[in-house]
């Protein structure tokens, strides 16, 4: 079977039909993963007994493949009568998988702040909540911006996993074309090129955002 460039070009619009879902899934998963990751990290810092349990949970999340976690949610939830649209299951799966990593980003971001900072705040009589909100969090944000940016791209690159549970994102569209036309070479090639372009655009956007943030943080 020869590679048919004309056919490849012709199917680009059909594959691109999935790009909206790809971006939607990536954005939702990024927010989900960030919230959940922050939650894990707060849990890890909360109590002596909770800490090792949370730590194990985070390590377990990071020790199993995203694909398997998504399968698990997709097949096990209906077993308990919970039927959700595949897109939500996928977003939840990706959020869950990346929350393990993002909790580590928060951990590193907080650990990088010298202990003297919270000590100084506490010694001034600020409460724990105010200490976190006004002293720790603003300094943490600066530390986590760059790694969060790279995880956002990581999440975008993981969205094709959702094709396996039939979420109509870009790889899903390509697979549809393939099963309609019985030709795999061109749709997969087109999907590869389009994802490369999409990821490069995303990387560029993140770099621009980071530079903006960097400018903000040094202008003080």
């Amino acid at each position, binding site marked *: 079977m020869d590679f048919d460039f004309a056919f490849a070009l012709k199917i680009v619009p059909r594959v691109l039909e999935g790009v909206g879902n790809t971006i939607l899934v990536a954005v939702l998963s990024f927010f989900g993963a960030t919230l959940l990751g922050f939650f894990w990290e707060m849990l890890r*810092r909360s109590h002596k007994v909770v800490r090792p349990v949370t730590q194990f949970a985070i390590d377990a999340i990071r020790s199993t493949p995203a694909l398997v976690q998504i399968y698990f949610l997709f097949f096990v939830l209906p077993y308990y009568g919970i039927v959700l649209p595949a897109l939500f299951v996928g977003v939840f799966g990706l959020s869950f998988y990346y929350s393990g990593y993002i909790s580590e980003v928060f951990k590193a971001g907080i*650990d990088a702040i010298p202990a003297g900072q919270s000590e100084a705040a506490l010694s001034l009589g600020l409460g724990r909540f105010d*200490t976190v909100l006004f002293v720790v969090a603003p300094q943490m944000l600066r530390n986590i911006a760059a790694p969060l940016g790279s995880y956002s791209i990581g999440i975008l690159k993981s969205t094709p996993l959702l094709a396996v549970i039939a979420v109509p994102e870009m790889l899903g569209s390509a697979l549809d074309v393939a099963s309609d036309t019985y030709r795999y070479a061109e749709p997969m090639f087109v999907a590869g090129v389009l*994802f490369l372009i999409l990821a490069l655009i995303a*990387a560029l956007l993140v770099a621009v955002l980071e530079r903006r943030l960097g400018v903000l943080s040094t202008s003080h």
Partner: protein
Amino acid sequence: MSFIEIVLGILQGAGVTAEVTLLGLLYAVPFALVAGVLQHFSTGTSRWTITIVIEFWRSTSVLVLLYAFYYSLPAFGIELSAVSVGAMVLGMNAGAYASQSVRAALQSLDRGQCEAGLALGLDRLTVLRMIELPQALRNMIPTFVNEAIQLIKGTALVSLITLTDMTFRAKQIAQLSYDPVGIYSGLLLCYLIICYPVSLLGRYLDRSAGKAGGRINGF
């Protein structure tokens, strides 16, 4: 099927998982070292070239790359087995990430180290091999371990290009008996057993490399 039977059934795929992982490492480690060193030392066009190669392997979705190589390469006359495609794509992807830690580790070395070596009359390559890389190695090992975990987990994807790894076995078992809870918990457990010790090793190395150092903010 009992849970034990399920897990044993899944573990029949462990051989393929291990094969793809080990072959993947054969791509990943040399590629990471060579690409990282080249990117550190080269300038101009050659630096651009090596950067583009690294970015190509880093920038695309692994799954899409897997499909594209598996299904599209034959149309260009390149026939590779599923194992070869899986090992190459997963290995080069992990290697591309790891190459960045090689470069960063070399860049963070004190310039005086290299100068002292050159002043002793060693040639540049010897300085790299005997002075710089051994010191940089300590800083790159945590990243290498973490990329190895990514590689092991990534092998689950080869089930989608027909290889009978652990994930593929689980899906086969799922067709025989309807027990999603048992089967997919079993599959998670299998990966956990393999990857968790490596995760702990990575965490330990990370800490001993001093990255997680410092007191914890108590609030």
